[in-house]
């Protein structure tokens, strides 16, 4: 700690020595992190949407004997792992629903002498357990047929997976890019200060003493980029959130404050960690460049 002032001054000197390049590094890192923030924001919103769609995932089970008491069957289904809600839909409700769907064309149902619909169970399930749930329900005594909407459900699962993979890919790409930029800047700094580093080594200075100012530089540049990205993303979300909600009201937006807090925390902590890591990678070259 006794050398903190010295380390900060050295870091300042290293940054000033190559100021134009370092300003571009800060801006570039800021923009990359801003893109990361955007992707994470979209990921957050789509995760909420997918989560909502997943909760809406439902299958229908029809009875062997529609007139029998369904309560035992409902109780059995509710005990199945992966089922979170079971609702009995009577024949009359099924007809009313169809009338609502058909709208002006609903008169067609009047052509039937008797209600053509049967009662059934509307079962909401967790998407990731669809196979086991379907198999268990199909084997329950009293269930004749299960309509599973598998295609739709599989598509929802596919979208979820694709978004997750995309998110991870973007995070990996941003992390690698930031690490490469920062470690390159640190290598440049080491090269420019090679004479000073050599002198310090000849005086017996340990590598951690020589390297710490460079770690600070990496941290300051990347954290500065993180701050810039946080400011940009805050401005964007504050301005655009209301407009997005108005234009696309069917998209369930998470709370703005919660989203902003999460994003700012991610950008600041992520940039700090990436800055330190990038510097450490860059510093590994100190041993090759300045042995002696």
């Amino acid at each position: 700690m006794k050398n903190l002032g010295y380390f900060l001054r050295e870091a300042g000197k290293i940054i000033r020595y190559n100021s134009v390049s370092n300003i571009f590094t800060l801006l570039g890192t800021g923009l990359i992190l801003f893109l990361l923030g955007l992707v994470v924001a979209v990921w957050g919103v789509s995760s909420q949407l997918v989560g909502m769609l997943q909760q809406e995932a439902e299958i229908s089970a029809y009875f062997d004997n529609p007139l029998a008491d369904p309560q035992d069957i409902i109780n059995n289904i509710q005990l199945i792992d992966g089922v979170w809600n079971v609702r009995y839909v009577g024949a009359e409700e099924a007809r009313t629903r169809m009338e609502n769907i058909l709208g002006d064309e609903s008169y067609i149902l009047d052509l039937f002498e008797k209600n053509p619909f049967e009662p059934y169970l509307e079962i909401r399930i967790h998407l990731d357990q669809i196979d086991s749930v379907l198999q268990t329900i199909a084997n329950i005594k009293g269930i004749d047929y299960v309509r599973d909407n598998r295609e739709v459900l599989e598509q929802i699962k596919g979208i979820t997976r694709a978004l997750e993979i995309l998110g991870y890919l973007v995070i990996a790409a941003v992390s690698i890019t930031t690490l490469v930029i920062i470690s390159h800047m640190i290598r440049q700094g080491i090269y420019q200060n090679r004479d000073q580093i050599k002198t310090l080594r000849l005086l017996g200075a340990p590598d951690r003493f020589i390297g710490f100012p460079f770690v600070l530089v990496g941290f300051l540049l990347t954290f500065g980029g993180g701050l810039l990205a946080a400011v940009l993303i805050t401005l964007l979300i504050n301005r655009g959130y209301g407009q997005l909600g108005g234009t696309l009201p069917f998209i369930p937006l998470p709370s703005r404050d919660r989203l902003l807090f999460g994003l700012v925390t991610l950008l600041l902590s992520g940039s700090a960690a990436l800055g330190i890591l990038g510097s450490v990678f860059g510093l590994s070259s100190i041993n090759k460049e300045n042995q002696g």
Partner: protein
Amino acid sequence: MIKARNVSLVYRDGTVALQNINLDLHHGGLFYVIGPSGSGKTSLMKLLMGMEFPATGFLEVMGQPMKKRETAKIRKLRRDIGPVFQEFKLIPGRTAIENVILGLRFLDIPLNKAKESAINALVRVGLEHKAFTLVDKLSYGEAQRVAIARAVARKPALILADEPTGNLDHDNAVKIFKLLESFKDKNTTVIITTHATHLIDECRAATFIHVRKGEISIERGGEQI
């Protein structure tokens, strides 16, 4: 202090810089390593600083074997050495006192003690009035005195000065030699390399290590040892 047995130094390009060197230098005292340019004086200093390693033989400095695989220990050993270089190796853009303190920052010394030692060292070399002057603005003679202050501020057991007067005029060179000689005592060994033997003729209290074509001979008080 320094023990060398059949030490040879061969550079990567195959140049034999030193061959079959045998030395036994004890604590305290003043040693001049003299010889013409290219004779191997700087190569000997590089071996003592751990900047190069013996191709054959055995070299020990203050109990530390100078071997390539012991670089971490050699780095620690350097904290007990005060090096002075021909080209000063001061850090530009810093003041004289900042340069002197820099050699103390990574030692186990509180910062206020380090500042005190740096000021005392600058007083000793007669540059206290230039303590807060940027080293870029000092003359060659002053810059070398700052380098000496940096070397002695840490109270080293061994001062290694490699051609410390190489860039200086006659008067400044004599002053630097006298200054370096003044640091010799029972706890501090001073080794100075130079080819300017005409400047040190009066220094009879020193031991002279003659280096010629990579081989050495030792002379003390006018007698060959």
